[in-house]
């Protein structure tokens, strides 16, 4: 049933990127009757192509951007010379990051949308309110949960906003890490709750339930039980006969006509041939790093500094995936290698509390997501030997007896943290490499320190025999897989790139939907918010199209 369109024949929409947002756009637009071509730079892997191969998938990065073909340069501030050094990671495959993500599926809290109003300005940062509220997005959070298939327990997180519907599926069975975390957190007067996850605890819409095989994070699900856009929505898009997914298609430019409207996308196919797919409108869902890069590469007479960049905002205010990870050893086996990664979460420290003296906070989750070789390589207590008999004994003793607590911490938007085009380095297609400029705001670091103490307290209360922080847990990050903030949503075109409906201020038939439009990054776990924005944008687009605006 998969449609096949001629590039010269303008389709209604070209969607760039078949990830968390792009998959949703493909389904929503094609089921509404529009003709859609989705251009995805990665291959189209299916369930049968996914493996449990730690060497191939995680250690050699078999599904993520290839740093040799797609190098990025990095500098911490604009005064420095950027050098080639991986700073950005994303999944190159139909389904994008939703294929290999941990599947934590958190809604942002109502206060996330107006922190600037409640907290005031933060010196050295560009904290702003969103142009939409939690209530604007709530119906689409619900839609995402019910369309994709999410397991969780409504009402169990006292810090969550109001919900119009419970989760469609009950929570996943609790793991030992969840039991220890919950018991300890309650002892400390905290409010742990069953993790909402985009994994099926029961069969749903013709998809099978999770078999607890343990290869969730960084892997594709062989059962289709992870609610990736690949498993949950792309099949419905293809089934309409109005959506063509074109994998191995690397977009280099969004083309603009004389009237200032976009006319389609130019891409390289798998053989390196350049193709121009014409379209009446373009939706870019290429992720928070590739979307601004593509706009900056899309220079024209009308947009000499890049598409939709008349005020120089494209690429700015990059936010990264901050976090710290405390590990602990326990007396009895937990066997965390089984089942999904996270079964218990707490949001008691999520809200920014001015009494702490810094902006930010974190959501905490219980997990132990080290695969065997990764743990043996560098997961163990930094004080223990790193090879030989004693090391090996400790390794054997520890692996099944471990858990950890991850703090998913805040990351402030800072204007100079950005994605831009490198002056010298090119990718394998001869295009300018992505240049990443990033340095954590000092409050981000303070949040990591504050949370590390909380992580330690909970693990100690759980009865851990030994606790340590993984290296770098207090330093902030220089490499991120959550890519956010670079094409900010806002009402003012002078300080934002897209409007409250994810439409580019500068271009009426261009939409940007992915991590790039996020104004703040909550406490990480942005996927549900990105997908809710995609459902909301799709609704808006349908109305705009009916009004003849597209």
């Amino acid at each position, binding site marked *: 049933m998969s449609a096949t369109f001629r590039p010269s024949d303008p389709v209604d929409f070209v969607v760039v990127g078949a990830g968390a947002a792009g998959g949703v756009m493909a389904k929503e637009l094609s089921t509404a009757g529009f003709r859609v071509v989705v251009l995805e730079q990665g291959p189209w892997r299916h369930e049968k192509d996914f493996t449990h191969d730690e060497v191939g998938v995680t250690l050699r990065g078999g599904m993520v951007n290839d740093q040799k073909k797609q190098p990025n340069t990095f500098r911490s501030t604009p005064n420095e010379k950027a050098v080639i050094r991986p700073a950005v990671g994303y999944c190159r495959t139909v389904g994008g990051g939703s294929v290999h993500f941990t599947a934590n599926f958190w809604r942002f809290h109502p206060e996330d949308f107006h922190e600037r109003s409640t907290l005031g300005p933060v010196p050295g940062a560009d904290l702003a309110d969103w142009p939409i509220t939690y209530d604007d997005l709530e119906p689409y959070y619900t839609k995402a949960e019910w369309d994709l298939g999410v397991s969780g327990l409504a009402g169990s997180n006292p810090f969550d906003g109001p919900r119009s519907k419970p989760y469609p599926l009950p929570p996943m069975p609790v793991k030992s890490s969840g039991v220890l975390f919950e018991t300890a957190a309650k002892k400390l007067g905290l409010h742990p709750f069953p993790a909402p996850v985009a994994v099926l605890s029961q069969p749903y819409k013709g998809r099978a339930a999770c078999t607890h095989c343990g290869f969730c994070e960084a892997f594709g699900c062989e059962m289709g039980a992870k609610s990736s856009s690949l498993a949950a929505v792309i099949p419905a898009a293809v089934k309409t006969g109005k959506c063509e997914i074109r994998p191995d298609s690397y977009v280099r430019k969004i083309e603009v006509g004389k009237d200032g409207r976009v006319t389609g996308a130019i891409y390289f196919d798998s053989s390196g041939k350049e193709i121009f797919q014409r379209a009446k409108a373009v939706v870019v869902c290429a992720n928070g790093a590739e979307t601004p890069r593509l706009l900056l590469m899309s220079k024209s007479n009308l947009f000499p500094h890049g598409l939709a960049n008349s005020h120089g905002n494209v690429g700015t205010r990059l936010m990264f995936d901050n976090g710290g990870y405390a590990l602990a050893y326990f007396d009895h086996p937990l066997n965390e290698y089984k089942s999904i990664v996270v079964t218990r979460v707490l949001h008691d420290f999520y809200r920014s509390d001015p009494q702490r003296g810094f902006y930010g906070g974190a959501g905490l989750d219980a997990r132990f997501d080290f695969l065997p070789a990764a743990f043996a390589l560098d997961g163990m207590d930094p004080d223990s030997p790193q090879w030989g008999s004693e090391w*090996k004994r400790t390794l*054997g003793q520890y692996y099944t007896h471990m858990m950890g607590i991850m703090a998913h911490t805040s990351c402030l938007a800072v204007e100079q943290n950005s994605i831009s085009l490198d002056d010298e380095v090119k990718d394998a297609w001869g295009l300018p490499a992505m240049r990443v400029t990033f340095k954590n705001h000092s409050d981000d670091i303070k949040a990591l320190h504050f949370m590390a103490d909380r992580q330690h307290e909970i693990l100690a209360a759980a009865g851990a025999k030994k606790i340590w922080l993984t290296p770098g847990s207090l330093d902030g990050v220089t490499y991120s897989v959550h890519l956010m903030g670079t094409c900010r949503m806002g009402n003012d075109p002078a300080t934002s790139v897209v409007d409250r409906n994810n439409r580019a201020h500068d271009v009426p038939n261009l939409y940007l939907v992915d991590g790039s439009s996020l104004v703040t990054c909550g406490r990480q776990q942005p996927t549900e918010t990105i997908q809710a924005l995609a459902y909301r944008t799709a609704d808006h687009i349908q109305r705009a199209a009916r009004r003849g605006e597209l």
Partner: protein
Amino acid sequence: MLAAACWAEVLRAQSQSPQFAWLDAPTAAEINAIACRIIPDDETPGADRAGVIWFIDRALAGYDQDKRELYQRGLRDLQAKRAAMFPGSASIAALSKDQQDQLLHATEKTDFFQMVRYHSILGFLCQPMYGGNRDQVGWKFLGLEYSMRYEPPFGYYDAQARAGTK
């Protein structure tokens, strides 16, 4: 029984090994000796039993070809260090285990040692299709029972919690 197959012995016995894709047998014996001090076969299986050397050979023949030079140069430097530390010794494999440990402790910060450590750990704990982790001895050593499907309870504490709520 494969447990009886000690690769160190096999490698010592063979002057050349056509089974290797890239390594020659004398080099393999030296690398294997290093791997076997990183993950010793002691009261439980280690690098030798897991066939780590076969993993390393395949990696150097295949996806890690660009590490060959590091191995060649690193091993040459290590041999020089061995000769200096243990005059009259013939090879790394021929040193006593204590001597091997001394030599490796003296060189553990080198890129070469770190690469052999990296490859040895991968060879011990990888999917067996890569040539290492034979009979899943690495996973079994960790207490990992490999399956496509598990049922709760998964571990001690969730089992206790379930028992408590029944």
